[in-house]
């Protein structure tokens, strides 16, 4: 289906008038019809996107309107069921608790990440150069770690028997010898949140720190001379300047933390509980790949896509406005 759309573009292309024209001087020699070249250049990328993303997206929509279960896996045709999958989801109280849980987890992680990240960025300005460089190096290291390596290290740190965290907490007087962190849903989510926040903070800290360099130094000094204390300088000078950065970074955190899958999935395998620790992503995986209920999984996935688009549209609109200017 996508291939026809592509051929259409390619066929249309030559008839495209060389409208608009490029403002720059034209080369002396005339070659292929001007209009066709850009389309030919875009074609491979467009084709790759259509195959890898476009087609699955379309297929997913179709799937979400079908009853596609194990029988269909073995070749049975999938009957159309209209909105049944969606209706079943709306009636499913487990799914709603899942949505609530995902949103809460997302906002908790994004909130803590932003607070810690902005805090570090502000502190970086006050440190001496040596300490600042060391801290920046540490943040870079943490940022560069592959997610799976991060997860294994934190599992090892939180290991109930030999983990350093239980050892330290016991040393500090707690009773944490052999404490299993991943068995209880609440402490499971605490560990997951620590991992997510630890991974996300460097990006926030660096970006906000870069934003802080835009704050005019003279303004800060003038305010200080006029007797403004640190807090009011922060509120009336620094924050207004970095507000756009904070908005974009915060939005990205929300998007990224809403789709969190890897961390939850891997820690679930360590902990053993799934029903009480599922979030949207792991639920899609388990109902689809795990149980073969592809129709249901596709419907949840479509819901998640829509949620993301709704949350992201301000960011996209913003980027586009900049693109135009």
């Amino acid at each position: 289906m996508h291939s026809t759309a592509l051929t259409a573009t390619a066929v249309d292309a030559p008839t495209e008038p060389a409208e608009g024209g490029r403002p720059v001087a034209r080369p002396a020699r005339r070659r292929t019809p001007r209009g066709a070249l850009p389309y030919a250049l875009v074609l491979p990328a467009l084709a790759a996107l259509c195959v890898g993303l476009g087609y699955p997206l379309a297929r997913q929509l179709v799937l979400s309107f079908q009853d596609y279960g194990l029988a269909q896996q073995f070749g049975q045709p999938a009957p159309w069921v209209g909105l049944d999958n969606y209706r079943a989801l709306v009636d499913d109280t487990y799914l709603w608790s899942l949505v609530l849980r995902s949103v809460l987890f997302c906002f908790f992680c994004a909130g803590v990440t932003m607070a810690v990240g902005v805090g570090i960025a502000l502190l970086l300005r006050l440190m001496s150069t040596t300490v600042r460089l060391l801290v920046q190096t540490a943040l870079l290291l943490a940022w560069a770690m592959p997610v799976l390596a991060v997860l294994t290290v934190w599992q090892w740190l939180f290991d109930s028997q030999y983990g350093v965290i239980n050892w330290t907490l016991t040393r500090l007087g707690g009773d944490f010898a052999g404490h299993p962190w991943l068995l209880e849903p609440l402490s499971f989510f605490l560990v997951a949140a620590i991992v997510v926040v630890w991974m996300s903070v460097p990006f926030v800290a660096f970006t906000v720190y870069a934003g802080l360099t835009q704050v005019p130094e003279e303004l800060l000094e003038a305010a200080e001379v006029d007797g403004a204390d640190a807090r009011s300088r922060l509120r009336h000078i620094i924050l207004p300047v970095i507000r756009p950065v904070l908005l974009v970074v915060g939005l990205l955190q929300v998007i990224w933390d809403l789709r969190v899958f890897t961390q939850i999935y891997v820690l679930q395998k360590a902990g053993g509980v799934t029903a009480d620790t599922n979030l949207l992503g792991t639920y899609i995986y388990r109902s689809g790949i795990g149980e073969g209920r592809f129709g249901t999984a596709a419907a949840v996935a479509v819901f998640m896509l829509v949620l993301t688009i709704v949350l992201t549209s301000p960011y996209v609109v913003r980027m586009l406005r900049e693109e135009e200017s």
Partner: protein
Amino acid sequence: MSRVSPTVRTTANLAGVAILLVFAFPVYWMVSTSFQTRAEIRAPEPTWHPFGGSLDNYRRLFTDGDGFTDALRTSLSVTLLTVVVALLFAFLAALAVSRFRFRGRKSFVVVLLLVQMIPTEGLFISQYKMLESADLTNTVIGLTVLYVAAVLPFTIWTLRGFVAGLPVDLEEAAMVDGCTRTGAFFRITFPLLAPGLVATGVFGFIQAWNEFTVGLVVMTRQDSKTLPVWLSTFTDVNRGADWGAVMAGSTLIAIPVIVFFLLVQGRMVGGLTSGAVKG
């Protein structure tokens, strides 16, 4: 900051040391543990340094690593193939977007932005079904098709910036002096673009090398797992029993990424929010 009082500076420095520990320690601990013996790892008191350790954990991975070498081969093939294909396609598209005005250009740019927001988790069910019906699950080609599509939008977006920054005048001057358009492009523009291509390629490498979710869904056979998927299974098998080998595997997976990342980090910080910083 011109004037920071000594008390404020000391407090900030102390906080800095605490931050340093929180972010550097897990990375240090991964590397340190990877050199320790099982006895050290399971001692009631942690061993805080890797000195006097051995390479046994690493040796185990290569001799009896439950498929580490297979995973390494799969990951390298998929990653390199993804980077090469994505760079080529992205370069052509970036050229079109930044050098030409054509009908549909704007929609293309919008699509690039939108696509970057699609969560993998919202799409892997049908991506799996697609590869399954094409008989491409557990193959390098199948996974590469998905990775190229995943990496492309960002790659085009970044390369576009580099291409737009190149002086068209220089190229045209060369043409006035008798170069063909292609000749001018390869002699003038391409060398100037090389750093941009390298940086963008590194991003693609990191993304494909680290990717877990799609790999997990698509590469299910033991001998076709990618490194992150292998590490996840390997951890489940050896949890508690052999943290040393798990940390050795993690370290090996992390090293190329850390090295590459440090090389291009300057551009990374700008990347996503450069527009926002501009305000």
